[in-house]
């Protein structure tokens, strides 16, 4: 589903952040990408989603056999790529429901499916909220405006559930959450696991992985993947810290 080959990327100020990433994620798999602060985790997520401010200087990214980097950010999303933001953006004046319906219908148009009217959309919303055990309280507010940290992350998970992506990248969705919010996020991720969907969890801590069991764990350091393994690698990292890995690499 996702093939990253020798990906190098730098900030527009010239600093190179990614220095040759190789990563292959297949359908139905959950990968965790771990690493210390500044290792390039969030840059990887940003480059995959198509955020401005980064320049890919080398390497390729193939997504569903297409050149991901050639697509505009909104096209990537309509093709089924979803990024859960580390810092979801507040958008005053744009109602959360209206926003989400516009997004869903953009995707449906792209797939040649009929748009959902307000009533149909509401039925889907209610079903998803129930599935995730979320309340309706966030829906009538402006997108992320005045949301607590936990509410913002719940909103990301809710959007993911609504958009049903093929590839979901969660950028530190677990950071700053209390245990209850973490469980909601984990439940959302586990419910999204399916044979035709891939999930990439970017995280600093092993904590989330107590609730979501990854198929593969990668350690990102200095802009490269320095070690990969199964879920036991996460536990090892927790025990030994990133410093040890660095020494070994």
């Amino acid at each position: 589903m996702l093939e990253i080959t020798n990906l190098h990327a730098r900030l527009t100020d010239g600093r190179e952040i990614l220095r040759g990433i190789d990563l292959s994620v297949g359908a139905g798999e959950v990968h965790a990408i771990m690493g210390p602060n500044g290792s390039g985790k969030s840059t990887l997520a940003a480059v995959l989603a198509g955020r401005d401010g980064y320049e890919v200087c080398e390497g390729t990214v193939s997504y569903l056999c297409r050149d991901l980097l050639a697509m505009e950010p909104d096209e990537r999303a309509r093709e089924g790529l979803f990024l859960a933001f580390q810092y979801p953006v507040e958008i005053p004046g744009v109602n959360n429901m209206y926003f989400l319906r516009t997004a869903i219908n953009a995707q449906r148009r792209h797939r040649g499916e009929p748009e959902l009217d307000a009533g149909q959309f509401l039925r889907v919303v209610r079903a998803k909220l129930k599935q995730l055990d979320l309340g309706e309280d966030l829906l009538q507010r402006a997108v992320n405006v005045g949301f607590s940290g936990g509410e913002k992350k719940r909103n990301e998970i809710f959007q993911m559930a609504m958009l049903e992506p093929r590839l979901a990248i969660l950028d530190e969705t677990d950071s700053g959450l209390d245990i209850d919010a973490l469980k909601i996020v984990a439940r959302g991720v586990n419910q999204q696991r399916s044979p035709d969907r891939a999930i990439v969890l970017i995280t600093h801590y092993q904590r989330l992985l107590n609730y979501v069991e990854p198929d593969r764990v990668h350690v990102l350091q200095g802009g490269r993947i320095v070690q990969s393994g199964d879920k036991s690698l996460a536990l090892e990292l927790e025990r030994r810290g990133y410093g040890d890995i660095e020494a070994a690499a």
Partner: protein
Amino acid sequence: MSTIVDFPVKAEARPYLEAFGRGSFLRDRQEPDWLAGYRKASLARFAELGFPSRRGEAWRYIDLRPLEKRPMLPVRTTDQAAISATVRDQLAEIGLAGPTCRFVLVDGRFAPELSTFERLPEGVWLGSTAAAIAERPDLIRSNLETPPPDPARAFTALNAALFADGFVLEIAPGVAFERPLEIVHLASGTVEASLHTRSLVVSGEDSRAAVIESFIGAGGYWRNDVVELRLAPSAELARAVLVEEAAAALHFGEMLATLGAASRLASFALLLGGRTVRHDITVRSEGEKSRCDLGGAFLLSGRQEANILTTVDHGAPGGETRENFKGVATERAHGAFQGRITVRPGAQKVDAHQLSRNLVLGPRAAIDTKPELEIYADDVKCSHGAAVGDLDEAALFYLRARGIPNGEARRMLIEAFVQEAAELVEPAPIREHLLSRIARRLASLEEQE
């Protein structure tokens, strides 16, 4: 009156003097002597002033050259044929949905056949300015003869000389007129001319009313509209203005409001259409603890220009002013906001805030914003804020990252930005109408892309 005059005349004023003098302007109107005298005196003032200069602050953002090159003389007669399919279409386009109390003017004159305001409640008087001159001189004469706050305003003087009609609304003390009153100004497009309208709203003590004035038209014309609002103590008045003039039209709207003690004025202006639109508000707070909310937005494209000017003059203590204006300019459009708040000596405990926020979308668009506070009292709370910028890139990326195409995402953000200013407009039918006009204008921008 002959064309030979005994006062100094600026060159650009001469065609208007001649139009006034030519035979019949006064004689045809059969107006009382006091009004004829008032018109002559106003015309003399205009002749002396000439067109405003771009070197002065008040007119620096408006290009008057087209008007100087080709005078637009007043419409001379009401052409019944002008009440055609065109104006009916305009009315259907701009009118509030559902039954309303509606007063329509075509080419600056009352059009009874398009108006529906029977069964007004007791204590509400509504009629054309021409009718008021005949039937209610008590209401209008003293008002016209009171010297304007700024006698140096040339187009206000021209309006006084040439106004054909307008509306007069009186709400008696203690009366709450709950239905929104709709005043619709249409332009038939049959004449390339100037339309001068003069209107008056008198809100009695403890009364309440809400008015929306919509302007729409066809062809090339110059609208020069002056409205005076007088709020008695504890009166509440809301006035919304919706300007969707024709693409080639000039629109100069002036509002002069006087606030009595503890009265409340809410004014909102949405400027969407017209080649050149100027919306000029003067509010004088004369009684203690008055409150005035001024809001508005312009949304410009092509080579449109719009200018919002506000002058709030606090002459009494305890007054409150809230200003919230938004501007959007795309393509080669140019917008400007100039806001002045004056607090006179002794007007203590005045609380005034002014905010002007603007989006400039495109390298050839521009918006100027110029707040001005003049404070001569020491115990006041006054502030202003101004911002000019582009759309929030982070918000745009967030929307796009959910699959919303760039153009649609931009429209959502612009709409949210403009709508915020209109969200406090009361009553709800007027607010909903303004919000839907904003959405429609944005959709038309998208089509142009």
